[in-house]
Each structure stands twice: as C-alpha cells, then as structure tokens.
C-alpha cells in the first residue's frame, strides 16, 4: 500500500452542496473507500486549499481512480501527491547510488572455504528456526548432475534463496552463485557489515544484476558457467505478488542454450506464510522444496521455446498445488 496526500479545492457547486448538507463532506471519504483506498486522516483547511486528506491506496492507478470518483461526486478539484514516509525517505537519500561487484575472487578456493565456514551463520540457523518441518522431494533426480547447471525457483518471498539452497546436494550447493538486484544488495556506503557488497559476494554467494542492463547483465553469469560454477536464478525477475506465477524472463534460457547446461526447476511452497509480503515479522511454518525433472535442451531449441518449457514445468506443479494443496 502506498500513501497519498490529496489536496482539495471545492468548486462553487461543491461549496453549495456542503452548505446545504455538511455531511456531504464525509461522503468524500466514503467515495474514496469504495476504491480500495483507506482514509488515514482528513482536515478542513483555511487558505489555498479547502481540504487535505491522507489516504492509503494499493497503487497509483487505484489512488487516481479514488480521486476521480471524488472529483465526479463532489465537484472538487484535487491535487494528488504520492507520499513517502519520512524515515524511509531519509534512508533513501542517504544511500549512495553507486554499486559494487561483481567480485571474481568469490569463486576462489579461499572464498568458497570462508563461505562454507559462514554457512551456519548466514543460512542454516534461519532454516532450522523457521522451516518447521522442512521437506525436500525429488533429490534423486539431480544426484548425477555434476557439471555446471542453472537452478531456478519460483519467487514469492525473500526466504526462497534459503529453501533452494537447503534442497540442493552438497556437490551443487558448494559452488553455486545467485543473481541479486545490484540496486538493493550491492549498494556502496552502507554501514552494516552484512549489507556490504563484499559480504554479499563472499558470504551469501551473490553477484549483482543491474536492472534493465540488457544482455550485458549476462556477461558475468556466463563467465561463472565457463569456470564450472552453478547458478541460481529466479526467472520471474522479482517476487510475484499474485496467485499465479509471473511471466518468465529469457535470461535463464539464453544462458542454458549458449553454455549447454541443464536447468533444474525447484518449486517451493510455504514460504509466503512465514513472512507475508509487507511484513517484517516471521513465523515458523512448513516448507517444501520440490525438485522437478532437470531440463536438457537440444542444440536447436530457440530461446522463447526454452523459456516456455521451463515455465510449463514450474506452472504444472504450481497449478497442482493451487488446486489440491501441497501433497508432499
């Protein structure tokens, strides 16, 4: 939900209405709430504007619709100002826009050893605390994969990365790297050690992806595959908000076809309930990672076809879970 400040100036017909029936002023709030927006506070003003209403709305479009409803029903002119809470704004302007990485040293022996040593702190303790119980199905399907591969998962929660890692056998897990948004995870100048770009590369095994960076963003993952490393990507690009899987991007297919590596789809359930979107609190809950059949592409497969194959594999499981629940 976003916050919006509405500044209203009544037209003369609106003022006539308000004079005839002052309750008309509250009708404004009702008309806003009809459009899934919620009135947080409302003031009548003296001066340049007649009314200031602070609302919460799901997105810009719904806020605009709520305003439109108000304009039509109250004959008031409105100015809508999308608002950001001040503490968040302060944090945003203190951040540097410069990002760090990728750090090629992250695949060296010493870095992998350090990552293994930090695994409990960075991953395992969270898995033990919140994945109760944690189940993995289909692990036997990937026992024989020993070359580089690309692991893909559905993305609904910040915890997906943890459930994916925990599902993988050690020979894949010990040499896997994740693509993460550079503007979120690789910003320079942050204070906390765990938010430093070098920490993400060394301990979390992440590498930066520049949003909207085009084909150049694939240069580093291609290099990783050339070095015999495994990759983990979320083909949806970002966390999906709705019930259905979001449209898959082509990056995974381009990498898999060019480097001739298999794709391992893993479908995870239960993570959204542990930390629902928009909340920071986490509650333990059951989590299952379903390892689906690895996909090997023929050399003549086209990129859109490959993307569709990966999507269909994930979506078939997704629809089964939606209809019948997780039967693991």
């Amino acid at each position: 939900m976003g916050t919006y400040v509405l500044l209203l100036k009544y037209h003369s017909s609106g003022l006539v209405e308000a004079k005839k029936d002052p309750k008309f002023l509250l009708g404004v709030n009702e008309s806003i709430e009809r459009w899934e927006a919620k009135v947080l506070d409302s003031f009548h003003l003296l001066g340049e504007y007649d009314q200031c209403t602070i609302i919460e709305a799901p997105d810009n479009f719904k806020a605009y619709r709520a305003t439109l409803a108000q304009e039509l029903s109250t004959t008031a002119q409105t100015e809508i100002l999308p608002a950001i809470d001040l503490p968040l704004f302060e944090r945003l302007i203190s951040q540097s826009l410069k990002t760090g990485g990728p750090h090629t040293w992250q695949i060296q022996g010493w870095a992998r050893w350090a990552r293994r040593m930090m695994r409990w702190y960075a991953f395992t303790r969270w898995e033990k605390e919140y994945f109760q119980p944690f189940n993995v199905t289909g692990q036997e399907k990937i026992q024989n994969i020993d070359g580089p591969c690309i692991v893909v998962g559905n993305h609904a929660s910040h915890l997906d990365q943890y459930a994916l890692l925990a599902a993988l056998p050690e020979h894949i897990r010990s040499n896997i790297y994740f693509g993460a948004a550079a503007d979120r995870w690789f910003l320079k100048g942050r204070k906390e050690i765990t938010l430093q770009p070098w920490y993400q590369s060394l301990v979390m095994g992440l590498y930066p992806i520049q949003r909207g960076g085009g084909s150049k963003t694939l240069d580093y993952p291609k290099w990783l595959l050339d070095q015999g490393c495994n990759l983990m990507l979320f083909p949806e690009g970002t966390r999906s908000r709705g019930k259905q899987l979001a449209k898959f991007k082509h990056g995974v297919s381009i990498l898999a076809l060019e480097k001739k590596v298999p794709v391992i789809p893993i479908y995870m359930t239960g993570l959204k309930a542990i930390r629902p979107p928009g909340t920071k609190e986490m509650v333990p809950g059951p989590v299952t990672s379903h390892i689906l059949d690895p996909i090997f592409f023929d050399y003549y497969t086209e990129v859109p076809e490959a993307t569709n194959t990966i999507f269909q594999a994930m979506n078939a499981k997704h629809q089964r879970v939606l209809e019948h629940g997780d039967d693991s």
Partner: protein
Amino acid sequence: MATYIMLSTLTDEGRKTLKERPDRLKSVNKEVEEMGARVRAQYAVLGGYDFVNVIDAPSNEVMARISMELGSRGTIKITTLPGMPIEEFLNNMLANPPRKDNSDDSDD
C-alpha cells in the same frame, strides 16, 4: 492544540543541504518541538510540493514563528494552512446551520 498542514518546497540550497546531510530532517523536527509544537505526521511527496507536514501547535502565533524560523534559513519555502479534523468541522457546521434569512440561499 490546533492542527496545521505545512506544505514545503525545497530551494536549490535546501536540496544541496539535504543531500549532504540527510540527518537534518530529524533535527528540524526537534527544533519544531522546542518551539512548542508537535509533528504529528510527515511525508516526502512527489508533485507541487516536496514535503507535507501535519503539525499540532497551540496557536497561530507559535505556528507563524515556526514558519518564519524555518523559512529564514533559505532552504525551504513554506505554505502553512490552518486545518481542523473533518469531523470537528462537520460538527461545527451542524451545530451552526446557515441562517434562513440569508439571501444567498435563495434559488435564482
């Protein structure tokens, strides 16, 4: 306490200061409180203004002082509008209905 809506726009100087020292935002709140008012809500906004502040202050005089004090630094331009909670305004309107003999009530 009365409520005021303070709409503020940063000047070029203000933008520079804020970029260099984002913590100024918090210290301004403290100063407002020292002058006898309370910041009830604050938003950074997109549009014709940069910030919308909802401030509770004991009187117009206190609010005018705050407005002058903050504006005198040359970092923001301020528009302060006295406000009242809409329910309170409504109750006042209902308690004081328009006089029937008022000529502008007639249809013409």
